[in-house]
């Protein structure tokens, strides 16, 4: 593998957890639920995934466990904000802090453990394409799954009727209720999906990406995923672009740090670069007010109380 292929490969791997988490959040937000707890749900997904993989030896059971952990966290969140009408922003922040802290507590015994590295799955023929073949088609299974997830969500939102209902509900829960859709139930499902995907994203980090458990290993990716959704103006394709951009800059700055390249830039600045670059680019592409108006869920973050 030459350098370019290697960078491309690493970019895609780095972008994958963001795609999974952000697409999950996109669904939740389209229903009008703003869950700022992604960071905490990812952390819980990461530790659950790591622990189960460690004990069972099956990374897939680990991913399932991560999914369950994320969904459980989002279920707590949903009870507070959907049933008890709590404030979504405050509850989400609390969920983040809870998840990060709790995962560190649970993860103490696993600090020194390392999981066996999981090899990529090679897709015959396609992987033989020069330069891009290897990074695109000789990848971790979850990378392919993230693409499937993207296709499924794009189809769901813009081609299927439940997706139409979801978009409508996020725009006006009152109208959706008055024509007979179960607003709270749909929001529960969307929130749970968001949580499950955040858990999968976390498990990807600890089971496939590193693969080890370190406290705080999510490192702000949950927040980046939330920002991605907003700046991608709630459109799946832009989420993918943003996630790979983040991954690309992340890998490039690591490359610069590692090789030295003879430039003297503080490493802290380089580490901040992916976050900065992603947000700047996404802000620029989301300038168009019409796009925002047409895609932003109007009711985002507002509790909905059905008329009795």
């Amino acid at each position: 593998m030459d350098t370019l292929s290697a960078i491309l490969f690493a970019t895609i791997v780095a972008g994958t957890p963001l795609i999974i988490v952000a697409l999950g959040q996109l669904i939740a937000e389209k229903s009008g639920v703003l869950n700022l707890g992604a960071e905490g749900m990812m952390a819980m997904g990461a530790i659950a995934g790591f622990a189960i993989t460690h004990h069972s030896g099956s990374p897939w059971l680990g991913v399932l466990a991560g999914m369950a952990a994320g969904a459980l966290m989002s279920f707590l969140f949903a009870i507070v904000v959907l049933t008890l009408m709590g404030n979504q922003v405050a509850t989400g922040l609390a969920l983040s802090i809870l998840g990060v802290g709790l995962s560190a507590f649970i993860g103490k015994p696993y600090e020194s453990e390392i999981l066996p590295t999981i090899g990529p799955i090679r897709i015959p023929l396609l992987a033989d394409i020069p330069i891009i073949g290897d990074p695109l088609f000789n990848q971790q299974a979850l990378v392919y799954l993230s693409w499937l997830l993207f296709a499924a969500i794009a189809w769901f939102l813009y081609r299927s009727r439940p997706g139409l209902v979801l978009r409508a509900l996020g725009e006006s829960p009152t109208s959706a209720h008055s024509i007979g859709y179960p607003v709270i139930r749909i929001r529960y499902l969307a929130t749970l999906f968001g949580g499950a995907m955040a858990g999968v994203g976390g498990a990807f980090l600890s089971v496939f990406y590193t693969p080890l458990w370190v406290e705080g290993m999510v490192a702000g990716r949950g927040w980046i995923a939330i920002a991605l959704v907003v700046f991608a103006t709630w459109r799946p394709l832009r989420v993918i672009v943003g996630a790979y951009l983040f991954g690309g800059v992340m890998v490039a700055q690591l490359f610069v740090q590692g090789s030295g390249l003879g430039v003297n830039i503080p490493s802290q600045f380089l580490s901040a670069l992916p976050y900065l670059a992603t947000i700047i680019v996404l802000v620029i592409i989301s300038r168009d007010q019409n796009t925002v108006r047409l895609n932003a869920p109007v009711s985002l973050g507002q509790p909905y109380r059905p008329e009795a």
Partner: protein
Amino acid sequence: MTSATDGAPAFRLELEGITKIYPSVIANEDVSLKVEQGEIHAVLGENGAGKSTLMKMIYGVAKPDAGQMKWEGELVHVENPAHARSLGIGMVFQHFSLFETLNVVENVALALPGNPELAQLAAQITEVSNRYGLPVDPERLVHALSVGERQRVEIIRCLLQNPRLLIMDEPTSVLTPQAVRKLFDTLRQLAAEGCSILYISHKLDEIQELCHVATVLRDGKVTGDCIPSQETPQSMASLMIGKELPVPEHDAPSELREVRLKLNRLSKPSEDPFGTELRNIEFELRSGEILGIAGVSGNGQQELLYALSGEELVSDPDSVVICGHPSGCDMPDRRRRNGMGFVPEERLGRGAVPRMSLTENALLTAHPADMLNHGMIRFDRISAFARNCIDDFNVKCGGEEHAANSLSGGNLQKFIMGREILLAPKLLVVAQPTWGVDVGAAAFIRQRLIDLRDEGTAILVISEELEELFEVSDRIAVIADGRLSPAKQLADTDIDEIGVWMSGMWDQPATAELDAHA
């Protein structure tokens, strides 16, 4: 569910002793109502009389606290609107239940069972819209539609569900007289086919023309049932408001004084890809007169209003002259300081901030009227102003500290009109002053507009209700496809002529004359 069509006397819908209590108000008390198959049944009542609440309970949006409902002879508890629709109940809402970021087809699809093919549905929509004279483009996004067009979408959406009971909440307020006639034909045809219709309207002449039976509500209670064809509008109005209906007094304007609003060949491409382009609009509006602009919704009214209010600016400052100031490039605040008052079409969101109190909403436009002390709010003055507005305009609300969205549409409209009128503007631009407002309140608002004119204010009323324009205007013009007809003195025209003009056909010589005049 059993079929009652062959059972002899079963009513389609029976309500008995329905009571609904909200924390601050009894919305319905012991309301009973019977609707027969194929009957067009009017529900009459002032704002806050409980009509909408009653309809919401029938449609399953709200649940009654007491009383029972029978559907085709069977006792039912309507759990939710989906349940209501499965029973065969359809409803056209007064406050629309449409989704702005979706297009018309998607909005309709959301209310239909199953998973209709969108392309096929679009064809169905076009067919229904042609059949019932409700023109609407299925591909357009709802946020780009005017209020009238949105209502058409609501009506079409209901008709596509083939309901056996159709609830219509103020359905005709934004239709042309011709379209109202078409709609009535449709409703009669539906009724003849056996569909029952619950018809809420404040237009007594329409109820007389259309409805078989009427139930009158006042303060949440039934005050009487009547056969509209055997009543006069006056007798029904007095059943409804408990006293005689005031008729606005409308003398000819006294002398006309200076020009307060002048449009010079106002042209403006629409910022919205689906909007209407304004083309060479010009007129003069003088102190002490009311100019009415009629037109079917979606013909440029919104664009004209935005250009007048300053929410959208035009490139040539001289094309909008407000009280002598070239204002085309002025922001709304500047225009208000030059003496303009403005009441937009949408009450919540543009006319008032839904979650703010009435006091705070009053402050939004009244702040130049000595409500500030070096930038600090003088709360005593602003609450006094809001209280004054509530008293003077008879706004039914819990007090000036209640949020704007806690008021019914008509009461909020009275408050907003009051807020602008009490500021004694030199020029007042009003859109749909009495949309969805009941007869009593509408007559009151119209009278206040005429009084304000007599005090020398120049008033522009843009409305889709012809009767209203004929009641208040001194001169009347028509907007069609972004062009404005010449303005005619009220005495020189009639509803039929204006109705023809609304389709854009005013005579060529008159237009030329207007051009020459400018």
